[in-house]
């Protein structure tokens, strides 16, 4: 939940109890864990804590980050979206196939990008429609569309990859602006937008209300169905945006892009303190969550830990973070 400014004039006891509850927030604990991890990893390799490496990691985390932002909204409503990785793959393929000068369409790049984003929006909208209008649980719906969208991507791609994009297309994924990778700016903008929307707008408040008590939200006259469809549609859009950045970063298009992305995104959101049962969570937590995951991946790799080992470590950190959080929540009587 958001922190609110209260009238000044608090007694010292109130201040110290507020300080205590601030320090016990999952976001703060996570931040401390992250800093510890960074310190630890910096010992493992002297290449880790360099501006160059960290900025480069920023490039790599943008796609997960974007998807995790919209995933935060979904999980706060008590839902889940497993299909984001497949939407990313589908959108990437659509982008390539629409642009491919040797292919059937050969559209200008701008049009291809637009179609890519549109496909993401439609894919997310379809998820929302099935969940809201047909009442199929989000887990089942997006598990089905996870297979469906990936299947479409593979069908459209015919196992071919599209490459050879014009130079200017790579600005987004490989270029920089003011010394910072271009896509990090995109991520930053969306971090700010989503954080403000979630904490300050009617829509954000409704998101929490739906997650805590959907029936109560409906009885309060909130257009719950419309809001939920909007949230899943936004998730599709973010996956499409991530697809665009992904293709631009790796200079090629393949149908298996983004597989497994949903797990990283969900892990980041949950690590960031958003309850998997819905009702509570924050964007700032998610941001720390995806940064921590990326830092661990990179730092461990640089320290010579194998990929398998890295996954084990990330899983362990996730479980530890949740256990610590549960423990603290119970101690402070909020659990």
């Amino acid at each position, binding site marked *: 939940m958001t922190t*609110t400014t209260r009238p000044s004039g608090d007694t010292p006891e109130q201040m110290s109890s507020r300080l205590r509850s601030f320090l016990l927030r999952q976001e703060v604990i996570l931040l401390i864990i992250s800093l510890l991890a960074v310190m630890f990893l910096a010992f493992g390799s002297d290449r880790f804590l360099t501006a160059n490496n960290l900025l480069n990691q920023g490039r790599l985390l943008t796609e997960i980050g974007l998807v995790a932002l919209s995933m935060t909204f979904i999980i706060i409503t008590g839902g889940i979206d497993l299909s984001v990785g497949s939407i990313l793959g589908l959108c990437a393929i659509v982008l390539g196939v629409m642009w491919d000068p040797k292919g059937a369409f050969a559209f200008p790049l701008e049009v291809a990008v637009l179609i890519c984003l549109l496909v993401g929006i439609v894919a997310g909208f379809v998820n929302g429609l099935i969940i809201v209008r047909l009442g199929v649980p989000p887990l089942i719906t997006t598990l089905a569309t996870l297979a469906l969208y990936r299947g479409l991507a593979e069908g459209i791609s015919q196992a071919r990859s599209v490459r050879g994009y014009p130079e200017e297309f790579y600005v987004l994924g490989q270029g920089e602006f003011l010394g910072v990778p271009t896509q990090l700016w995109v991520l930053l903008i969306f971090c700010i937008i989503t954080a403000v929307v979630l904490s300050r707008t*009617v829509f954000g*408040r*409704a998101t929490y*209300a739906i997650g805590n*008590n959907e*029936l*109560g939200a409906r009885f309060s006259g909130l257009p719950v169905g419309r809001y939920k469809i909007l949230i899943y549609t936004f998730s599709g859009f973010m996956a499409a945006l991530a697809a665009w950045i992904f293709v631009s970063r790796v200079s090629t298009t393949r149908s298996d892009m983004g597989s497994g992305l949903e797990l990283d995104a969900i892990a980041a959101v949950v690590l960031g303190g958003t309850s998997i049962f819905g*009702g509570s969570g924050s964007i700032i937590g998610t941001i720390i969550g995806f940064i921590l995951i990326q830092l661990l991946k990179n730092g461990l790799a640089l320290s010579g830990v194998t990929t398998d080992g890295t996954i084990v470590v990330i899983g362990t950190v996730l479980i530890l973070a949740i256990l610590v959080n549960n423990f603290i929540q119970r101690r402070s009587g909020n659990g």
Partner: protein
Amino acid sequence: MPPEQPPILEMGHISKRFAATQALSDVSFVLHPGEVHALLGENGAGKSTLIKIISGVHKADSGSIAIDGQPVSFNNPREAQARGIATIYQELSLYPDLTVAENIFMGHAPRRKFGPVSVLDWDAMFSRAQELLESLNITDMDVRRKVGTLTVGNRQRVEIAKALSLNARVLIMDEPTAALTEADVQRLFEIVRLLKTRGVAIVYISHRLAEVYEVCDRVTVLRDGHYIDSKPVSATTEADLVSMMVGRTIDNLFPKITAKIGQPVLEVRNLTRKPLTRDVSLTVRAGEIVGLAGLVGSGRSELAQVIFGFTPAESGEIRIDGKVVKVRTPGDAMRHGIAYVPEDRGTQGLVRQMRVRENVSLTVLRSLASGLFINSQSERQLAEEKVKEMGVKTPSIEQIVGKLSGGNQQKVVVGKWLATHPRVLIMDEPTRGIDVGAKAEIHRLMSELAGQGLAIIMISSELPEVLGMSDRVLVMRGGQFVAEYSREEATQEKVVTAMMTEHGSTAA
């Protein structure tokens, strides 16, 4: 109950503290076999804490508990159960997808040897469940039926049978009649009397004083966690009990002030949504309180939810101030000035995990927003204003609503709906499960609102409330209005007769 019989349960000088709240301080409670002992107090007086200590859910910080004169200490509900203490909570704890018999014998089902393995003995389970129910004079229930398909009253009977299957000698009933219809209440009382003759001691918690006089022998009153007094019921009057509970005298439980009745505000014509709203027509005027009486399942809440657009009508029309309006969603209803305080504040009326401020503003977020953003200053102002106006007792508007008492929660629900400036206010069981003091405040508020020209529909299963508050009483049965009485004409007998003729009983 002969007083010379030794007590079955003795609790002495019990204290219990939760974080900042002293829930109980130095409370004593003595229970004899074969007595029905009412435990009274406003919400927050410590009744729930006391029964949770008896049933092993909580442990007392200090004090003693003795059963049959032997000191005991329960670490968990199982240990209490083993000593013959059973609790029937407000929220029934049955498994809806299992049969009556399975629910009764959950955890201790009869088994038989099948070679080396022991398997469930279904025949024995069904026949023993049948016997148990028959011993409670319940002959109209199929033990093979799924509990989810039973009425609330029947589910409660299953709960009682379950407690007896564990050889309960102390039965704690926490507001057993809160969700029951008049007929079910009578059947419950029969069972209570039957158990009494068998020497079962019953702790009876209820907000309805009439029930205390009807079935209870002794009464113990708690207030703010303190023991006030324990007396034979026959030695008290209703006014005594109320003043013991609230620490002040309340002259009139239903402070009805007749308001000037004006033009029709809400007119409903031939409204239909099958199966429980059938061709209903109704007019409510400004300043008028219309009471809807009926058994549970008669279609009162369903009608309210059709008018409110939660389950929109299939046919018929709704007029506000003479103009036909389309109500397809609760949002539409709100825009046309219809507000609905739902039956269940926990799941429908509030978002319990959220703050008082956030709950009050939930209905009017759009109008509090400048552009897309919630104006937090006007939000706080609105919340402060409603908390004051409703007299919500809360440390601050930042309090989590779920931590307030039932009465205060209900005031928040009413407040959030008054924030929409409605013309028509539908209140569904507005005082269910709330304490006497809060109840009187809600009633006074209703009179005030009517005085300001609001048209009010009140749905209530408590007849004295319906008769006390309404200018007009409409009786529903099977999704239709079957009788209408003016305030002067309406009597308990007439209304009950209209509610129950044809079916006579609601046994399912």
